[in-house]
């Protein structure tokens, strides 16, 4: 095998890497013995590789290590802060979720509407489909024909289901629908004023009620 200078130059890097096959290597070495130019190129290239492989060549800028350590310390503390902040934000989010849930639970969608009368007692077990009579400006609903219907009410009566009446804030009449109230009126001793005693009654309705 014969190689010319140009071929040697193109393979010089591979030769230094030890990546030429043995036959080419032997041919190149024979060429170097006779060619001063190629030997100069080989020696110079090897020197370049050795010089640049020296760790002393690229010095770090003054203070590089100190600045790096400072940034790493900042990053460590801020990542710790971020973790703490994440936990704190998780707690805030949970609180907000609970508060939101409570708010939502108290909204008109999920709870009984406010009763029109602050003195009315929450009903219990009223059959949803029971047809009751209400008046627009009244506060209670009645069984049709209830003798405690006011005359004024009787002139503006309309019929609806007990479920609708309850949704609109009407309370059961303490007379005609007394059994559905969760509070009962008891008579105090004669010497004192009648008063309301709030007391949970057991469910009186046998069919599914409200």
């Amino acid at each position, binding site marked *: 095998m014969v190689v010319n200078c*140009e071929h040697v*130059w*193109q393979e*010089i*890097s*591979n*030769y*230094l*890497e*030890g*990546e030429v096959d043995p036959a080419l290597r032997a041919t190149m*070495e024979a060429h*170097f013995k006779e060619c*001063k*130019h190629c030997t*100069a*190129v*080989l*020696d*110079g*290239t*090897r*020197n*370049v*590789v*050795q*010089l*640049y*492989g*020296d*760790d*002393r*060549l*690229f*010095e*770090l*800028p003054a203070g*590089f*290590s100190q*600045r*790096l*350590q400072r*940034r*790493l310390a900042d*990053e*460590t503390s801020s*990542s710790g802060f971020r973790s703490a902040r994440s936990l704190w934000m998780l707690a805030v989010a949970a609180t907000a979720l609970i508060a939101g849930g409570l708010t939502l639970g108290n909204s008109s969608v999920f709870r009984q509407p406010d009763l029109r009368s602050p003195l009315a007692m929450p009903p219990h077990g009223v059959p949803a489909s029971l047809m009751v009579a209400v008046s627009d400006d009244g506060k209670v609903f009645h069984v049709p024909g209830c003798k405690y219907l006011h005359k004024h009410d009787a002139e503006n009566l309309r019929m609806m289901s007990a479920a609708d009446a309850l949704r609109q804030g009407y309370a059961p009449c303490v007379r005609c629908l007394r059994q559905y109230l969760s509070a009962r009126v008891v008579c105090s001793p004669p010497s004192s004023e009648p008063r309301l005693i709030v007391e949970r009654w057991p469910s009186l309705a046998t069919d599914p009620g409200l």
Partner: protein
Amino acid sequence: MGSLPRRTSIQVETADPAAVREQHLLRRVQAGEKKLFYELVKPYQGRVYSAAFAVLRNEADAEDAAQEAILKAFTHIKQFRAEARFSTWLIQIAVNEALMRRRRAHSEIMEPIGERQEEDGNYTPRDFADWREIPSEALERKEIRQKLAEAVAMLTQKYREVFILRDVQQLSIEESAEVLGISRASVKTRLLRARLMLRDMLAPGLSGAWFARLPFEKGSKPW
């Protein structure tokens, strides 16, 4: 004559006490001992910096990129898998960070124009000065180090990157190819050109001109 001794094998390095210590440190850092991270990267600061410098050719930018790369490695340390060397992983992050900054700055227009050659054409050495010996004190002298750094900065980007990764960082051909996302053959072609161009730039000075004794240098007698 012959090939250069190189660090090429991961298997050889795993038997090295330094490599064993690095593996131990790495596991502890990945397990959450973040304060040990600096100990882990300390041996590679210079290599990360020079990788960034190879791309950016500016000390301040290279430092920013190198530090940012190390911080990114810190943040993503749990993602490192031992399939690659830790140093290669770090250098890859540094090169990517530097490339991203260079793209952002559009600094391609500042590339040197003197040494552009097409990769397909053969490179012909221009200087045949006999440069057999490397003066032992060469790298002790700051001005020599400066001239070497200037010379490598004169290389076109694609040659400079390969040269720094292979000959300064001592990555293997395969690792250099992986870091740069190019083929093994391209690494070898660019490496040849980079070495020959640097030799042309440095041979005249290192074969004698830079070592001429100055009249008042230590040991000389001006009278």
